[in-house]
C-alpha cells in the first residue's frame, strides 16, 4: 500500500468520522518495500494540493523517513492553466526547475514508490487495528461496527 493512499485513509468506523484523532492512521510493525512506478509529474502536481502535509510528516516519521521537508513544497500550478503569460514565465522559471525536479522526484519516491507490505494501522480514536497483508489493508468491520 502506497504512502499516498495512507495519506487519504481514515478510520472506517462511523463514530470516528467526526474525531480529528481518526486521521492519520498510525503504523505498527510496518514492513516496507520499494516498487517501480513510472514518474508522472502532472499527476503529482494534481495531487499535491490535496495531500495533508502534517499527516504525511507523522506517517513518514513513524516509518523512519526523516528527509521530509517541514513545509509543503510550492510547485507551479499545472501547465494547463497558464494560458496568458506562458512564454515569459516559462523562460524565467527554467532555472529553478532543476530544484523543482528534484523535489518532485523525491516526492514520487516517497508517495508512490514506497509501499507498506505488512503491518498494522491503528486508529488514534477508537484503537481499531487494520491489518495489512501482502500490501492489502483489511478494512472489513465486524458487524457491530459496520452499521
Amino acid at each position, binding site marked *: *500500500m*502506497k504512502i*499516498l*493512499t495512507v495519506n*487519504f*485513509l*481514515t*478510520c*472506517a468506523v*462511523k463514530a470516528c468520522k467526526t474525531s480529528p484523532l481518526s*486521521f492519520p492512521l498510525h503504523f505498527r510493525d510496518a514492513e516496507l518495500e520499494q516498487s517501480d*512506478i*513510472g514518474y*508522472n509529474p*502532472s*499527476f503529482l502536481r*494534481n*495531487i499535491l494540493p*490535496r495531500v*495533508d502535509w502534517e499527516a504525511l510528516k507523522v506517517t513518514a516519521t513513524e516509518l523512519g523517513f526523516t528527509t521530509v521537508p517541514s513545509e509543503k513544497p510550492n510547485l507551479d500550478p*499545472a501547465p*494547463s492553466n497558464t494560458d496568458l503569460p506562458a512564454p515569459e514565465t516559462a523562460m524565467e522559471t527554467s532555472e529553478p526547475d532543476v530544484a523543482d525536479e528534484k523535489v518532485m522526484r523525491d516526492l514520487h519516491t516517497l508517495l*508512490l514508490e514506497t509501499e507498506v507490505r505488512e503491518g498494522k494501522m491503528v486508529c488514534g480514536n477508537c484503537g481499531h487495528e487494520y491489518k495489512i497483508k*501482502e*500490501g*492489502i*489493508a*483489511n*478494512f*472489513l*468491520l465486524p*458487524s457491530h461496527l*459496520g*452499521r
Partner: protein
Amino acid sequence: MSRPEDTLPPDLFYNDAESRKYTTSSRIQSIQVEMTHRALSLLGLTSPSLILDIGCGSGLSGEILSSVAPPLGGPHIWIGMDISASMLDIALQRDVEGDLLLADIGQGVPFRAGTFDAAISISAIQWLCNAESSDTSPQGRLARFFNGLYASLRRGGRAVCQFYPKNEMQKSMVSAAAIKAGFGAGLLEDGAGTKNVKVYLVLSVGGGAIEGVVEGMEGVDVEERMGRKGDGRKRGEEVGKKGRKQWILSKKEQMERKGKIVKRDSKFTGRKRRVQF
C-alpha cells in the same frame, strides 16, 4: 438468467474458482474491458487523476486506468476496494499497479473528504441491494455507500457506476439513494431493450454538470438535478387539506425525495371512495 446476487453474498460467491474465471474467460474479460472504456469516456478525464475503483475485483478495470496513454489524460493512479479476498488474490497475482483494499462498500468509503478526482465501478453496486444479515438493510447500505462516496470525491468530481439492476424497482432505489446523498444523477442505458443491456449511473458532485456529461448521448434520462436552493416552495400553499389528493401527492413526492420507495401515481391515487352504507 440466474443472478449471482440471489445465491450468495459477494464475499462467498467470488471464491477461488469463480475469481479465476476473470483471468481465464475471455468473454468475461472482453465485456469488462468494454464497459470500463465506456465508463472512462463518460468520466471525461483530461489529466492524470486519482481514481477510486469500487469493486475492483481482479483489477481488470484498474489495468485499463493505469494504461491510459499520456495524450488521452493518463496514466491514472487508482485505489481499488473489493469485498472478495479471492478476487484481490487474483489481482495480486496479476501484479496490478493500484493499491487494493479489502473492504465492504456497504460499510462506507474510508477516505477523507475530497480525496478522489473520479470514481468508477463496474458491475458492483447491485450487490448493495442485498442485505445478508438482519442488522443491515439495502437502503442503509446504499445510503452509507453513496454518502461515503459523495464525501470522498472532490467538488466537480464524477463517478460512473455500471450495474445490473434486477428490475425497475432496484434501478430507481439505487438512483434515488444516490440523489439523496447529494449527487446529480443520470442513468445511461446501452443496448436498451436487448438482453445485453448495460446500465450506467453517472454521478456528479456539485456544479450540476450532469446535463453536460450526458448531453448529446442517446437513451439517457436525467433523473433529477439536486437543487437545494431552487426548491424553496412554501409549504401549505398548494398542499391542501390532509387526506385530499393534493396532500397525498405532495407526501409521496416528499418521501421520494427522501429516497424512499414510493408506489407510482395512478388514477386511483387519492381517489374519493364510494359512499358506504
